[in-house]
């Protein structure tokens, strides 16, 4: 069991000003699996994701205490250590937001953007990787003839798949998704669910969702966040307990 854990959180507390948002979280997240987090709104599910890529550091008055360790293939590393470069962490831990957030530029440039940030200038490499990412996100066929159009002209579902494709370009080990389907129609939701099932072969996926049916369809593990605590979902509790004991 222990060999398959990729993320370990111990004794983790999150504060906003002097208010406790997350209290003494202990969690272990399995590699190449979909872990779903559900729970009432406004209880810190998004915050939980932002702890993993340290995006909360942009929030004024937020504070984290505790330990987060991630195994990127070289053993567990403390990603909150002073010397740990946050930009590198965010390339390895991709994130997709609740509302699709394409940048105000062409579809092509959006997908190539992470590579631009890394200083990649070779056009052949760029276009190859843009194509690969769009194919992975099941979006290539729909946009291959309009790559130079502004990404904001795409439909909501397409925009969200664009954002997933963009998050995949740096080849992250972990993908965080914050209610990625909450603003989409049924057909788009199915496409994205199929996509996530495919992606977990190469990626560890943590998904915040409040659709129980969605969680039932695709999640390997379920966690519930409520009243500042993260607990295994009731019906799967014993299942996980068994795993830990093994």
């Amino acid at each position, binding site marked *: 069991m222990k060999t398959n854990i990729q993320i370990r959180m111990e004794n983790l507390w999150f504060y906003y000003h002097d208010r406790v948002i997350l209290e003494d979280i202990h969690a272990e997240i399995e590699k190449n699996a979909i872990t779903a987090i559900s729970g009432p709104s406004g209880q810190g599910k998004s915050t939980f994701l932002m702890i993993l890529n340290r*995006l909360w550091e*942009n929030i004024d008055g937020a504070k984290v205490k505790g330990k987060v360790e991630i195994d990127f293939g070289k053993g567990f590393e403390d990603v909150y250590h002073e010397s740990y470069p946050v930009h590198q962490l965010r*390339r390895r831990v991709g994130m997709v*937001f609740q509302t699709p957030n394409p940048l105000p530029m062409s579809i092509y440039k959006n997908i190539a*953007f992470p590579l631009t940030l890394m200083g990649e200038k070779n056009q052949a490499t760029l276009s190859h990787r843009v194509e690969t990412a769009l194919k992975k996100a099941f979006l290539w066929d729909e946009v291959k003839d309009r790559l130079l159009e502004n990404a904001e002209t795409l439909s909501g579902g397409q925009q969200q798949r664009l954002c997933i494709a*963009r*998050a995949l370009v*740096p080849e992250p080990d972990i993908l965080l998704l914050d209610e990625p389907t909450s603003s989409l129609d049924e057909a788009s939701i199915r496409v994205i669910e199929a996509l996530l099932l495919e992606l977990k072969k190469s990626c560890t996926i943590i998904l915040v969702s409040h659709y129980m049916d969605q969680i039932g369809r695709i999640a390997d593990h379920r966690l519930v966040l409520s009243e500042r605590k993260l607990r295994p979902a009731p019906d799967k509790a014993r299942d996980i307990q068994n795993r830990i004991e093994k």
Partner: protein
Amino acid sequence: MDFQDRFFRSLFLGASALSALVTVAVLCFMVLLCLPVLKLDFIRHVLTAPWSPGQGQFGILPMMAGTICIAFLSLVISFPISLGCSFFIEILKPKGKGNLLKKLVQFMTAIPTVIYGFVGVFLLVPFIREIFAYGSGMCILSASLMLGLLISPTLILFFSQSFSRVPQSYLNAVDALGGTTWQKLYHVILPHAWKGMLTGIVLAFGRAMGDTLIALMISGNAVVMPSSLLDSARTLTAHIALIFAADFDSMEFKILFISGIVLYMMTSLGILFTRGLDRKGPA
């Protein structure tokens, strides 16, 4: 539409029409006042000859050059500093310090221009004189530095406002992809904010061109074509103020209205030029 709606609509329409009209009326007023000397030959004379009323030469070209030099240079000095300040205030946001700086900058707008002039005369001018060991220190460089300081609050406040209007979702996207702060500025913030920044630049440039006191107190007021940053120069505004204070109804006095029109035109051209940039650029 009920009465109240109609009332307010016409009230606001009237207010905006009035302020637009004032702009036009000022131009008409000046043209009217210089009608007596408004002949083509004479305009050519005014725009090309040197200023030497004793010899019957009333050219304002040196003042035009002085105005453009000082206004442009002050913008060049102020732009990078203001960009850095507003970036510090809006994007880096070091705990509490950003807001404090913004408050200070807002306070700067309330300082009377003449105070800047004092500081310039007693601190900056001697400093420049000693550093360069040349002339009186009352020169284009001193005036531009002081004027740069004077217009920086306009730039900083406009830049900050444009930066803060960049949607958080764009910033999150760059952050989540591991972009550095500088990449965020270069790839997302500047492309999104530059239109608002341009408005700030236009206003600041207008302010720099229109400011009278700084130039009057610090630039030395010599009526010569400027040839180096350490030369004294006179701006159109200072020229108008100087003649106006000492003269009435002479030829020099009548020339002032032409100076006014030229100043008006130069500012308008500046604005139209930046508007043109705005339209050509990508959305």
